[in-house]
Protein backbone atom coordinates (compact mmCIF):
# COMPACT_ATOMS: atom_id res chain seq x y z
CA UNK A 1 0.00 0.00 0.00
CA UNK A 2 1.46 3.27 -1.04
CA UNK A 3 0.79 6.62 0.51
CA UNK A 4 -2.11 8.70 -0.82
CA UNK A 5 -1.64 12.45 -1.04
CA UNK A 6 -4.77 14.59 -0.84
CA UNK A 7 -4.40 18.27 -1.67
CA UNK A 8 -7.20 20.72 -0.94
CA UNK A 9 -7.66 24.38 -1.73
CA UNK A 10 -9.39 25.24 1.53
CA UNK A 11 -8.35 24.47 5.06
CA UNK A 12 -11.85 23.36 6.02
CA UNK A 13 -11.81 20.61 3.37
CA UNK A 14 -8.36 19.56 4.56
CA UNK A 15 -9.59 19.52 8.16
CA UNK A 16 -12.53 17.34 7.19
CA UNK A 17 -10.23 14.89 5.40
CA UNK A 18 -7.92 14.85 8.38
CA UNK A 19 -10.61 14.19 10.97
CA UNK A 20 -12.19 11.35 9.02
CA UNK A 21 -9.06 9.24 8.56
CA UNK A 22 -6.97 7.98 11.47
CA UNK A 23 -4.03 7.21 9.18
CA UNK A 24 -3.96 10.76 7.78
CA UNK A 25 -1.38 13.37 8.73
CA UNK A 26 -1.31 16.99 7.72
CA UNK A 27 1.83 17.93 5.82
CA UNK A 28 3.10 21.42 6.57
CA UNK A 29 6.78 21.99 5.92
CA UNK A 30 7.52 18.27 5.79
CA UNK A 31 10.11 18.17 8.54
CA UNK A 32 7.99 15.87 10.72
CA UNK A 33 5.75 13.92 8.34
CA UNK A 34 8.33 13.24 5.61
CA UNK A 35 10.84 12.30 8.27
CA UNK A 36 8.38 9.74 9.66
CA UNK A 37 7.72 8.31 6.19
CA UNK A 38 11.47 8.08 5.48
CA UNK A 39 12.03 6.13 8.69
CA UNK A 40 9.30 3.64 7.76
CA UNK A 41 6.36 4.85 9.85
CA UNK A 42 3.57 2.80 8.28
CA UNK A 43 0.88 4.31 10.51
CA UNK A 44 0.69 7.15 7.99
CA UNK A 45 -1.05 6.16 4.79
CA UNK A 46 -2.69 9.45 3.84
CA UNK A 47 -0.97 12.79 3.56
CA UNK A 48 -3.27 15.81 3.61
CA UNK A 49 -2.23 19.21 2.24
CA UNK A 50 -3.98 22.54 1.84
CA UNK A 51 -3.07 25.34 -0.52
CA UNK A 52 -5.13 27.85 1.47
CA UNK A 53 -3.43 31.25 1.41
CA UNK A 54 -4.79 32.01 4.86
CA UNK A 55 -2.48 29.41 6.32
CA UNK A 56 0.60 31.38 5.37
CA UNK A 57 -0.64 34.82 6.41
CA UNK A 58 1.24 36.97 8.90
CA UNK A 59 -0.58 39.74 10.73
CA UNK A 60 2.01 41.62 12.73
CA UNK A 61 0.83 45.20 12.52
CA UNK A 62 -1.10 45.54 15.77
CA UNK A 63 -0.57 44.72 19.43
CA UNK A 64 -1.86 41.20 18.86
CA UNK A 65 -0.05 39.24 16.20
CA UNK A 66 -1.31 36.24 14.26
CA UNK A 67 0.83 33.71 12.43
CA UNK A 68 -0.74 31.31 9.97
CA UNK A 69 0.16 27.71 10.75
CA UNK A 70 2.08 27.43 7.49
CA UNK A 71 4.37 30.41 8.20
CA UNK A 72 7.99 29.32 8.09
CA UNK A 73 10.70 30.38 10.50
CA UNK A 74 12.58 32.02 7.64
CA UNK A 75 9.57 34.28 7.04
CA UNK A 76 9.39 35.22 10.70
CA UNK A 77 13.08 36.16 10.54
CA UNK A 78 12.37 38.33 7.50
CA UNK A 79 9.62 40.24 9.32
CA UNK A 80 10.89 43.29 11.17
CA UNK A 81 7.67 43.59 13.17
CA UNK A 82 8.29 40.14 14.64
CA UNK A 83 11.70 40.96 16.14
CA UNK A 84 10.67 39.56 19.52
CA UNK A 85 10.27 36.13 17.88
CA UNK A 86 13.56 36.20 15.99
CA UNK A 87 15.61 34.53 18.71
CA UNK A 88 13.35 31.46 18.94
CA UNK A 89 12.94 31.31 15.14
CA UNK A 90 16.71 31.49 14.60
CA UNK A 91 17.36 28.77 17.18
CA UNK A 92 15.65 26.16 15.01
CA UNK A 93 17.55 23.97 12.58
CA UNK A 94 19.89 25.22 9.88
CA UNK A 95 18.75 27.55 7.08
CA UNK A 96 17.10 24.74 5.12
CA UNK A 97 14.98 23.63 8.07
CA UNK A 98 14.00 27.25 8.74
CA UNK A 99 12.95 27.58 5.08
CA UNK A 100 10.70 24.56 5.48
CA UNK A 101 9.59 24.17 9.09
CA UNK A 102 6.38 25.92 10.14
CA UNK A 103 4.85 27.44 13.23
CA UNK A 104 1.99 24.94 13.12
CA UNK A 105 4.26 21.94 12.76
CA UNK A 106 6.43 23.07 15.64
CA UNK A 107 3.43 22.62 17.96
CA UNK A 108 3.62 18.89 17.23
CA UNK A 109 7.40 18.47 17.27
CA UNK A 110 8.34 16.00 19.99
CA UNK A 111 11.08 16.67 22.54
CA UNK A 112 13.93 17.65 22.05
CA UNK A 113 12.36 19.72 19.25
CA UNK A 114 9.56 22.27 19.42
CA UNK A 115 11.63 25.26 20.58
CA UNK A 116 9.37 27.87 18.97
CA UNK A 117 6.45 26.45 20.90
CA UNK A 118 8.30 27.14 24.15
CA UNK A 119 8.31 30.81 23.23
CA UNK A 120 4.62 30.69 22.32
CA UNK A 121 3.80 29.00 25.64
CA UNK A 122 5.53 31.78 27.58
CA UNK A 123 3.62 34.33 25.49
CA UNK A 124 0.29 32.69 26.39
CA UNK A 125 -0.57 32.13 22.74
CA UNK A 126 -3.91 30.97 21.43
CA UNK A 127 -4.08 28.14 18.91
CA UNK A 128 -6.88 28.31 16.33
CA UNK A 129 -7.85 24.81 15.19
CA UNK A 130 -10.34 23.42 12.73
CA UNK A 131 -11.80 20.06 13.66
CA UNK A 132 -14.50 17.96 12.12
CA UNK A 133 -17.10 20.14 13.86
CA UNK A 134 -15.79 23.61 13.10
CA UNK A 135 -13.16 26.05 14.22
CA UNK A 136 -12.27 27.02 17.77
CA UNK A 137 -9.55 28.74 19.76
CA UNK A 138 -7.62 26.81 22.39
CA UNK A 139 -5.16 28.25 24.92
CA UNK A 140 -1.74 26.84 24.00
CA UNK A 141 -1.26 25.19 27.37
CA UNK A 142 -4.47 23.24 26.99
CA UNK A 143 -3.54 22.42 23.39
CA UNK A 144 -0.19 20.96 24.44
CA UNK A 145 -1.72 18.91 27.25
CA UNK A 146 -4.10 17.29 24.78
CA UNK A 147 -1.60 17.17 21.88
CA UNK A 148 -1.92 13.43 21.41
CA UNK A 149 -5.62 13.88 20.69
CA UNK A 150 -5.11 16.83 18.34
CA UNK A 151 -3.80 14.70 15.46
CA UNK A 152 -7.20 14.78 13.77
CA UNK A 153 -7.51 18.56 13.94
CA UNK A 154 -5.91 21.10 11.67
CA UNK A 155 -4.10 24.04 13.23
CA UNK A 156 -4.99 27.21 11.33
CA UNK A 157 -3.00 29.86 13.14
CA UNK A 158 -1.37 30.92 16.37
CA UNK A 159 -1.79 34.33 17.92
CA UNK A 160 -0.38 36.15 20.89
CA UNK A 161 -0.04 39.61 22.36
CA UNK A 162 3.15 41.43 21.58
CA UNK A 163 5.29 41.87 24.72
CA UNK A 164 5.14 45.40 26.11
CA UNK A 165 8.90 45.86 25.80
CA UNK A 166 11.86 43.99 24.35
CA UNK A 167 13.06 43.31 27.87
CA UNK A 168 9.78 41.70 28.93
CA UNK A 169 10.34 38.62 26.79
CA UNK A 170 13.47 36.50 26.95
CA UNK A 171 14.43 33.27 25.25
CA UNK A 172 17.34 30.90 25.59
CA UNK A 173 18.06 27.54 23.97
CA UNK A 174 20.78 25.47 25.57
CA UNK A 175 22.46 23.22 22.99
CA UNK A 176 25.72 21.34 22.93
CA UNK A 177 26.46 22.17 19.32
CA UNK A 178 26.71 25.77 18.13
CA UNK A 179 25.12 27.31 16.18
CA UNK A 180 22.82 24.40 15.54
CA UNK A 181 21.94 21.58 17.87
CA UNK A 182 19.07 19.80 19.56
CA UNK A 183 17.83 21.30 22.78
CA UNK A 184 19.23 20.25 26.13
CA UNK A 185 16.80 22.73 27.65
CA UNK A 186 14.88 25.58 26.08
CA UNK A 187 13.65 28.42 28.25
CA UNK A 188 11.38 31.37 27.57
CA UNK A 189 10.13 33.96 30.04
CA UNK A 190 7.48 36.63 29.69
CA UNK A 191 7.78 39.10 32.56
CA UNK A 192 5.42 42.08 32.21
CA UNK A 193 6.41 44.78 34.67
CA UNK A 194 3.74 46.97 36.23
CA UNK A 195 4.81 49.69 38.67
CA UNK A 196 8.20 48.04 39.13
CA UNK A 197 6.62 44.68 39.98
CA UNK A 198 6.23 41.59 37.84
CA UNK A 199 2.59 41.01 37.03
CA UNK A 200 1.59 37.87 35.13
CA UNK A 201 4.96 36.07 34.92
CA UNK A 202 5.02 33.12 32.53
CA UNK A 203 8.03 30.87 32.26
CA UNK A 204 8.05 28.00 29.76
CA UNK A 205 10.47 25.11 29.46
CA UNK A 206 11.25 22.71 26.62
CA UNK A 207 12.85 19.25 27.02
CA UNK A 208 11.87 19.22 30.69
CA UNK A 209 8.76 17.05 30.23
CA UNK A 210 7.10 15.04 27.43
CA UNK A 211 5.69 18.35 26.13
CA UNK A 212 6.64 21.97 26.68
CA UNK A 213 5.56 22.98 30.20
CA UNK A 214 5.31 26.01 32.43
CA UNK A 215 7.58 26.39 35.43
CA UNK A 216 4.79 27.45 37.75
CA UNK A 217 6.82 27.41 40.95
CA UNK A 218 9.37 29.74 39.39
CA UNK A 219 6.55 31.98 38.15
CA UNK A 220 5.14 32.17 41.71
CA UNK A 221 8.57 33.09 43.04
CA UNK A 222 8.62 36.12 40.73
CA UNK A 223 4.99 37.22 40.83
CA UNK A 224 4.43 40.59 42.46
CA UNK A 225 8.13 41.10 43.10
CA UNK A 226 10.72 43.18 41.35
CA UNK A 227 13.22 41.41 39.15
CA UNK A 228 16.23 41.46 41.48
CA UNK A 229 18.82 39.05 42.81
CA UNK A 230 16.69 37.54 45.61
CA UNK A 231 13.63 36.96 43.40
CA UNK A 232 15.81 35.56 40.60
CA UNK A 233 17.50 33.22 43.07
CA UNK A 234 14.12 32.07 44.37
CA UNK A 235 12.86 31.44 40.83
CA UNK A 236 16.04 29.56 39.90
CA UNK A 237 15.83 27.26 42.88
CA UNK A 238 12.20 26.48 42.05
CA UNK A 239 12.84 25.94 38.34
CA UNK A 240 12.91 22.15 38.37
CA UNK A 241 9.75 21.80 40.44
CA UNK A 242 7.06 19.89 38.58
CA UNK A 243 9.35 18.91 35.72
CA UNK A 244 9.77 15.35 34.44
CA UNK A 245 12.66 15.40 31.95
CA UNK A 246 13.91 12.21 30.36
CA UNK A 247 17.29 10.87 29.33
CA UNK A 248 18.34 11.25 25.73
CA UNK A 249 21.55 11.50 23.74
CA UNK A 250 21.80 15.22 24.44
CA UNK A 251 21.57 15.02 28.20
CA UNK A 252 20.32 12.95 31.11
CA UNK A 253 17.23 13.75 33.14
CA UNK A 254 19.49 14.33 36.14
CA UNK A 255 21.63 16.81 34.22
CA UNK A 256 18.62 18.71 32.97
CA UNK A 257 17.22 19.03 36.50
CA UNK A 258 20.62 20.19 37.75
CA UNK A 259 21.12 22.92 35.18
CA UNK A 260 17.63 24.26 34.56
CA UNK A 261 17.91 26.61 37.53
CA UNK A 262 21.34 27.82 36.44
CA UNK A 263 20.08 28.72 33.00
CA UNK A 264 16.91 30.31 34.33
CA UNK A 265 19.06 32.50 36.61
CA UNK A 266 21.22 33.53 33.64
CA UNK A 267 18.16 34.24 31.51
CA UNK A 268 16.51 36.37 34.17
CA UNK A 269 19.65 38.23 35.11
CA UNK A 270 20.53 38.94 31.49
CA UNK A 271 23.81 37.02 31.51
CA UNK A 272 25.11 35.47 28.35
Amino acid at each position, binding site marked *: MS*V*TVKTFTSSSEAAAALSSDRSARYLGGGTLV*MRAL*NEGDISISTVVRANDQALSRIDASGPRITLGAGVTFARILAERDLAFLHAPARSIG*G*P*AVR*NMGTVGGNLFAPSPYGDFTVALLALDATVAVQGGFGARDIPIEEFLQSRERQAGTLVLSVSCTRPASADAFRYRKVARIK*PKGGSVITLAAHLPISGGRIAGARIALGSMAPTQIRARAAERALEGRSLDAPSIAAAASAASEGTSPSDNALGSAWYRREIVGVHLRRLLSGQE
Partner: protein
Amino acid sequence: MSKTPLQFRHNGRDVAIFVDGGTNLLVALRELIGDMTPKFGCGQGGCGTCSVLVDGELHLSCLTLAETVAGRSVETLDSLKQGPNLHPLQRAFADNFAAQCGYCTPGMLMAAKALLDRNPQPSRAEIVEAISGNICRCTGYEPIINAILAASGGRASA
Protein backbone atom coordinates in the same frame (compact mmCIF):
# COMPACT_ATOMS: atom_id res chain seq x y z
CA MET B 1 -1.09 1.94 -7.50
CA SER B 2 -1.83 5.36 -8.90
CA LYS B 3 0.91 7.73 -9.86
CA THR B 4 0.79 11.49 -9.89
CA PRO B 5 2.15 13.46 -12.85
CA LEU B 6 4.65 16.11 -11.83
CA GLN B 7 6.30 18.85 -13.86
CA PHE B 8 8.98 21.19 -12.65
CA ARG B 9 12.15 22.91 -13.75
CA HIS B 10 15.27 20.90 -13.01
CA ASN B 11 18.52 22.84 -13.42
CA GLY B 12 16.91 25.09 -16.00
CA ARG B 13 15.28 22.31 -17.96
CA ASP B 14 11.61 21.32 -17.82
CA VAL B 15 11.05 17.76 -16.64
CA ALA B 16 7.91 15.68 -16.34
CA ILE B 17 7.72 12.51 -14.24
CA PHE B 18 5.18 10.32 -12.49
CA VAL B 19 5.60 9.87 -8.76
CA ASP B 20 4.16 7.44 -6.26
CA GLY B 21 2.30 8.96 -3.33
CA GLY B 22 4.67 10.01 -0.60
CA THR B 23 7.76 10.08 -2.83
CA ASN B 24 10.24 12.66 -1.62
CA LEU B 25 12.09 15.03 -3.90
CA LEU B 26 15.43 13.31 -3.27
CA VAL B 27 14.11 10.00 -4.58
CA ALA B 28 12.43 11.78 -7.50
CA LEU B 29 15.68 13.50 -8.47
CA ARG B 30 17.90 10.45 -8.06
CA GLU B 31 15.74 7.56 -9.17
CA LEU B 32 13.29 9.15 -11.60
CA ILE B 33 15.39 11.91 -13.15
CA GLY B 34 18.82 10.33 -12.64
CA ASP B 35 20.49 13.33 -11.00
CA MET B 36 22.69 11.60 -8.43
CA THR B 37 24.32 14.76 -7.06
CA PRO B 38 22.05 15.17 -4.01
CA LYS B 39 22.78 12.40 -1.50
CA PHE B 40 20.80 10.54 1.14
CA GLY B 41 22.34 11.01 4.55
CA CYS B 42 19.65 10.76 7.17
CA GLY B 43 16.11 11.31 5.85
CA GLN B 44 15.49 13.33 9.01
CA GLY B 45 16.68 16.86 8.30
CA GLY B 46 19.80 16.39 10.40
CA CYS B 47 22.66 16.28 7.90
CA GLY B 48 22.00 18.49 4.87
CA THR B 49 23.59 16.16 2.28
CA CYS B 50 20.38 16.26 0.22
CA SER B 51 20.22 20.10 0.12
CA VAL B 52 18.90 21.63 -3.10
CA LEU B 53 17.56 25.05 -4.05
CA VAL B 54 13.81 25.36 -4.59
CA ASP B 55 13.07 28.69 -6.27
CA GLY B 56 16.47 29.80 -5.01
CA GLU B 57 15.78 28.84 -1.38
CA LEU B 58 17.76 26.13 0.38
CA HIS B 59 15.55 23.09 1.00
CA LEU B 60 16.14 19.53 2.14
CA SER B 61 15.04 17.34 -0.73
CA CYS B 62 14.53 14.27 1.49
CA LEU B 63 11.91 16.15 3.53
CA THR B 64 10.21 17.69 0.51
CA LEU B 65 7.18 15.89 -0.83
CA ALA B 66 8.00 15.69 -4.52
CA GLU B 67 4.66 16.99 -5.73
CA THR B 68 5.07 20.23 -3.77
CA VAL B 69 7.67 21.42 -6.30
CA ALA B 70 5.19 21.31 -9.20
CA GLY B 71 5.83 24.31 -11.42
CA ARG B 72 8.80 25.43 -9.34
CA SER B 73 12.51 25.55 -10.10
CA VAL B 74 14.84 23.01 -8.49
CA GLU B 75 18.62 23.42 -8.65
CA THR B 76 21.13 20.80 -7.65
CA LEU B 77 24.92 20.69 -7.67
CA ASP B 78 24.66 19.45 -11.25
CA SER B 79 23.69 23.00 -12.27
CA LEU B 80 26.81 24.68 -10.90
CA LYS B 81 29.40 23.88 -13.50
CA GLN B 82 29.31 26.22 -16.51
CA GLY B 83 30.28 23.96 -19.39
CA PRO B 84 33.81 22.78 -18.71
CA ASN B 85 34.43 25.49 -16.12
CA LEU B 86 34.02 24.98 -12.42
CA HIS B 87 31.87 27.46 -10.51
CA PRO B 88 34.02 29.69 -8.26
CA LEU B 89 32.69 27.80 -5.24
CA GLN B 90 33.69 24.46 -6.73
CA ARG B 91 37.14 25.81 -7.56
CA ALA B 92 37.51 27.22 -4.04
CA PHE B 93 36.42 23.93 -2.45
CA ALA B 94 39.02 22.07 -4.50
CA ASP B 95 41.79 24.59 -3.80
CA ASN B 96 41.10 24.69 -0.08
CA PHE B 97 40.86 20.92 0.41
CA ALA B 98 37.26 21.34 1.51
CA ALA B 99 36.27 17.77 0.62
CA GLN B 100 37.57 14.47 1.85
CA CYS B 101 35.06 11.67 1.35
CA GLY B 102 32.98 14.05 -0.77
CA TYR B 103 29.61 12.87 0.47
CA CYS B 104 28.58 16.09 2.21
CA THR B 105 30.07 18.25 -0.56
CA PRO B 106 26.98 18.52 -2.81
CA GLY B 107 24.89 19.76 0.11
CA MET B 108 27.65 22.05 1.39
CA LEU B 109 28.03 23.63 -2.03
CA MET B 110 24.29 24.25 -2.35
CA ALA B 111 24.15 25.77 1.14
CA ALA B 112 27.11 27.97 0.20
CA LYS B 113 25.48 28.97 -3.07
CA ALA B 114 22.22 29.85 -1.30
CA LEU B 115 24.26 32.13 0.94
CA LEU B 116 26.34 33.85 -1.75
CA ASP B 117 23.32 34.37 -4.02
CA ARG B 118 21.79 36.56 -1.31
CA ASN B 119 24.91 37.84 0.40
CA PRO B 120 27.91 37.93 -1.96
CA GLN B 121 30.37 38.99 0.74
CA PRO B 122 29.39 37.23 3.94
CA SER B 123 31.26 37.40 7.20
CA ARG B 124 32.81 34.32 8.68
CA ALA B 125 29.97 34.15 11.23
CA GLU B 126 27.38 34.31 8.46
CA ILE B 127 29.13 31.44 6.67
CA VAL B 128 29.14 29.34 9.82
CA GLU B 129 25.43 30.00 10.23
CA ALA B 130 24.73 29.23 6.56
CA ILE B 131 26.29 25.76 6.70
CA SER B 132 25.08 25.00 10.22
CA GLY B 133 22.54 22.51 8.86
CA ASN B 134 25.18 20.56 6.95
CA ILE B 135 27.26 17.91 8.66
CA CYS B 136 30.78 17.02 7.54
CA ARG B 137 32.39 14.11 9.36
CA CYS B 138 35.80 14.11 7.63
CA THR B 139 37.46 17.42 6.85
CA GLY B 140 36.36 19.49 9.75
CA TYR B 141 34.59 22.71 8.93
CA GLU B 142 37.56 25.07 8.73
CA PRO B 143 38.59 24.25 5.14
CA ILE B 144 34.96 24.53 4.07
CA ILE B 145 34.53 27.92 5.74
CA ASN B 146 37.82 29.08 4.22
CA ALA B 147 36.71 27.88 0.78
CA ILE B 148 33.47 29.85 0.96
CA LEU B 149 35.37 32.91 2.17
CA ALA B 150 37.80 32.51 -0.70
CA ALA B 151 34.99 32.15 -3.25
CA SER B 152 33.40 35.36 -1.97
CA GLY B 153 36.70 37.21 -2.23
CA GLY B 154 37.15 37.21 1.53
CA ARG B 155 40.37 36.39 3.29
CA ALA B 156 40.74 32.89 4.62
CA SER B 157 42.09 32.64 8.10
CA ALA B 158 44.49 29.89 9.07
